[in-house]
């Protein structure tokens, strides 16, 4: 048994990894540029770059073999460290030089750095133009006098000028900085070191980490995923949990009733009603329910002004779901009733009600409960339609709006949660089968 469980857990890990890969491909690769929804396009490329850096979207997709150009300020002064373009140079913007977020402080290795964009296989021979993502290094304006280049202002106040007019490759740039008059070792240009650990500093692995550790934050509101689930999950659960248990209880009662009177007109009418119930669209139940509530008790018809108005969507969910459940349970019960031991018991004169309630239901409970367990993972997502219509601030509604507004961390986080819960619930149902059904041996 333990061997079986261990093996299943390993399989579960691979399943979830597959789910993560799929969500990554769908939401990062196919969905494309999410910054259009969160960054005002009028602010230009710099704002978009800041957004990508903040959410680690500037990293390479799967594996990171990339390095970047660094400009390290070796002084340790109080002023802001600035690099600006001068005389027609566009290099600072083109190379996307920005202050890398490192901790400043006395300890060795903590210096102010300007870092450029991540470039694949960066070496001193790489031409500068291939590092700029298509942006030109020089402005097209004519009539500019003086050498074009970068004006550097270090944190101790030193100011000097780096001439870029003859610089073609990355190595030239590093040499130009080193040989610059005024720079006595205060500013070093270098290519960042690449260590095998940074192989995993890529979008895919950050995506994995963010989901596994539940540290994702919404792009729109910056709330953490846990906070959002805590805030809104209970509303979703308040609809789905009562709906699930109530449906189960009512379906059990009705299906026992119908199975007992099988092949009589009660059974036929029961089946007719359940099939009708399954055919009516969900939306019809909702509209009808809401219309009736507005006539009877308008204060409870929409929203959550009173906690008990949650029962309106609960009852609608029960009414809509009852038909299918009754059909399913009836089938299971009838399967059991057709077994040999029931026929023997009937032949021995045991009345049908006691067979039903003492023996048959016990054997039916296993498939029924295991089916119930596999629906548990989806309870937290709530019911999108019910939440929308009745104004319940649950997770289902949030999931849909997150998809349309490309709030990727929320979508992937909820998908991951559901995937893990589902895989675990499948494992539990298999184990339960082995525990309660002596005929089954798990290998």
């Amino acid at each position: 048994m333990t061997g079986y469980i261990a093996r299943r857990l390993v399989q579960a890990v691979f399943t979830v990894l597959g789910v993560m890969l799929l969500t990554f491909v769908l939401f990062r690769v196919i969905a494309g540029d999410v910054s259009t929804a969160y960054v005002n396009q009028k602010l230009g490329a710099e704002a978009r770059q800041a957004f990508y850096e903040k959410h680690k979207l500037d990293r390479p997709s799967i594996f990171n073999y990339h390095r970047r150009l660094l400009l390290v300020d070796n002084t340790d002064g109080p002023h802001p460290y600035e690099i600006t373009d001068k005389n027609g140079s566009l290099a600072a913007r083109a190379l996307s030089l920005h202050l890398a977020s490192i901790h400043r402080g006395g300890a060795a290795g903590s210096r102010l750095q300007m870092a450029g964009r991540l470039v694949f296989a960066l070496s001193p021979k790489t031409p500068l133009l291939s590092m700029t993502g298509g942006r030109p290094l020089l402005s097209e304006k004519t009539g500019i006098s003086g050498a074009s280049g970068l004006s550097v202002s270090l944190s101790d106040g030193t100011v000097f000028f780096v001439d870029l007019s003859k610089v073609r490759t990355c190595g030239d740039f590093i040499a130009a900085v080193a040989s610059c008059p005024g720079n006595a070792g205060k500013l070093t240009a270098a290519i960042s070191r690449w260590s095998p650990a940074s192989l995993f500093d890529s979008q895919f692995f950050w995506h994995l980490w963010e989901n596994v550790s539940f540290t994702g934050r919404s792009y729109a509101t910056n709330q953490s995923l846990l906070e959002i689930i805590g805030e809104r999950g209970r509303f979703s659960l308040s609809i789905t949990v009562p709906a699930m248990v109530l449906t189960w209880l009512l379906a059990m009662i009705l299906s026992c009733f119908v199975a007992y009177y099988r092949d009589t007109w009660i059974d036929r009418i029961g089946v007719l009603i359940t099939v009708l119930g399954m055919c009516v669209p969900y939306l019809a139940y909702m509209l009808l329910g809401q219309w009736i509530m507005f006539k009877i008790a308008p204060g409870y018809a929409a929203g959550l002004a009173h906690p008990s108005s949650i029962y309106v969507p609960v009852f609608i969910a029960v009414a809509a779901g009852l038909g299918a459940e009754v059909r399913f349970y009836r089938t299971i019960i009838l399967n059991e009733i057709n077994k040999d031991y029931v026929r023997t018991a009937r032949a021995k004169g045991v009345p049908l009600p006691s067979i039903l309630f003492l023996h048959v239901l016990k054997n039916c409970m296993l498939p029924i409960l295991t089916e119930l367990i596999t629906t548990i993972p989806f309870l937290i997502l709530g019911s999108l339609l019910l939440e929308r219509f009745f104004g319940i601030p649950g997770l289902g509604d949030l999931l849909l709006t997150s998809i349309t507004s490309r709030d990727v961390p929320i979508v992937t986080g909820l998908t991951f949660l559901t995937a893990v819960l589902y895989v675990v619930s499948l494992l539990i149902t298999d184990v339960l089968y082995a525990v309660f059904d002596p005929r089954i041996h798990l290998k």
Partner: protein
Amino acid sequence: MKWFYIISVLVVAALVSLPLFVLRPAGKKGADSGVVYNAIYSADVKSLDPATCGDVTSSTIQANFYEGLYTYHYLKRPVEVVEQLADGMPLVSPDGLTYTIHIKKGVLYHRNPCFGKDPSGAHAWNTRMVLARDFVLSLKRVADYHINTGLAWAFLADRIVGLDAYREKTRQFRIGDFSRYDIPVAGMAAPDSFTLTLRLTAPFPQFIYVLAMNNVYAPIPREVVDYHLSTTDDGKGGRVPVPVAERVPEIMEQEQVVGTGPYLLSAFKRKWTILMDRNPEYRADYYPTQGEGPSQGYEGDGAAGLLADAGKRVPFIDRAVFRYVEEEYAQWMLFLSKQVDVTGIPVETFQAVITPGKDLTDSWKKKGICLTKASDPVVYWIVFNMEDPVLGKSKSLRRAICLGYDAQNEIKILSNDRGIRAVNVVPATFTGHNEAGPGPYFRFDTLAAFRTMQEAKKELAAEGLLKNGEIPEIKFDMSDGPMNLRMADFARQQFERLGIRLKCVFNDWPTLQRKVQNKQIQMYYMGWAADYPDAEDFLQLFYSKNIDKGTNNSNYKNPVFDSLYEAIRVMPDCPERTRIYARMIRIIGEDCPLLPIYEPENFTLYYNWMHNLKQHPMGYGYLKYRRIDAALRRALGGSEG
């Protein structure tokens, strides 16, 4: 087995009754909460920070607790700018470049922990007066590279001396490093506590309107940045600093909102409820004593009863409850069951409620429901991409499309006739519209359309752009939504009449934005809401330099138009400018880079216990003027309180 049954029934009963304990009602309903105003909002409030406010819902909510230097007069039409936190209109230097604004003395912020405990002990928290340097901080935050400002920055870019350079400097700072707010900006100064001077790069006659976007440039006390954004609650009653790498520069939580407005933000639950309570220390503000006079079609504010509360101190309503309801049916039913005081009218019920004469039917008047109408300074149009090989090259094709589109019918079918046909790129109430006259091609004339179509075919054949002698299929991009589906059908019919095949493509909003930005669309449907009451706001959409800026989405390039635009840009309001406006509007009317469809009319229903309701085309923050007769509401079966 018997135990199983009993236990399972008990478990079911317990789980079913669980919501009653888990769900607690949002916000406490105090016994003395006073007069309560119930309203609905149907789109999420995207921002609680004045600097990032860019959509209507955020502005509507924010304007109740944030106030700016100037605002628009509630009643006067055409709209007029009046002072709000400023003391008098700004003193403008003769060259139009320096604005000196005096701030009212004694305006207090909402009490908040960021100011510390109240020394007198009368209140929990302290407060302080609004000072000129708070406005400087607010403008710096708008210019801050790390704050996702949209609308707010669009009006200041290239306008204030030194502000663009400041924005570049902020780029060098890390997101959480707020020492960047200490850097001085050349063009913004607070020479003394209650005076603010702003220096512009070029004369900008519409600057006063920019300052009247009241909540966007609301003052922000430095304490909010230092306390709420730089430190956090340590759980033991004290504050612990947040590491720089983890700080968020924008105001996002309810307790971080510190404004001067008539209402305090008591509770903010995203996409659920917003609660606002009256600010007991709100400055002395009074209901206006003058209003709009009688004119054609309107009896005047006095006769309409809008001046009954003239001179009284505002706000009247004690508490405002905004509920998030997305479905139109639920919104409508909530209004009919008297749980909500104001509503719009859904398309399906419009005919039952409004007569063809655009007035309320008698049966509805008997229920105690009243109607107010206002025309919004918004124009909806179909934009043609002037860089498209087919649409851009052939002026006759664009003219033919304009002549062959029955916009009046579209307004009737798709919007219940709730609007007027737009005949110019500028709304009907704006200066320049009447002087220019209606655009010669912005009318429905099938004969002229056919004739122009023949010319268009000749033009395109000369360029070699016809496919088998027919005009190639044109793609029409729209955002998705049920209304747009109907519009697509309508548009297809109109184009069929001209013999053009139309392909309608539906996109979600981010994809549509991206396509427009990358110039991948041929034509698309958009609306432009006036940011201020000046035609320049619409004419700048065709200035060629705005193509890169992103506001010129038709990619229209006309050197004559550009030179005229550069001229009026610095002119104050005068007859000469109006003449040039008319000329520019006529140029657009001749070139047809767009097909204007309609200017919407806003129909709002409200119950007769709500007084002083007048829709304002441009301003926000007028909830303080509304008054509710609570006794009448209770008597008619509405909500208590």
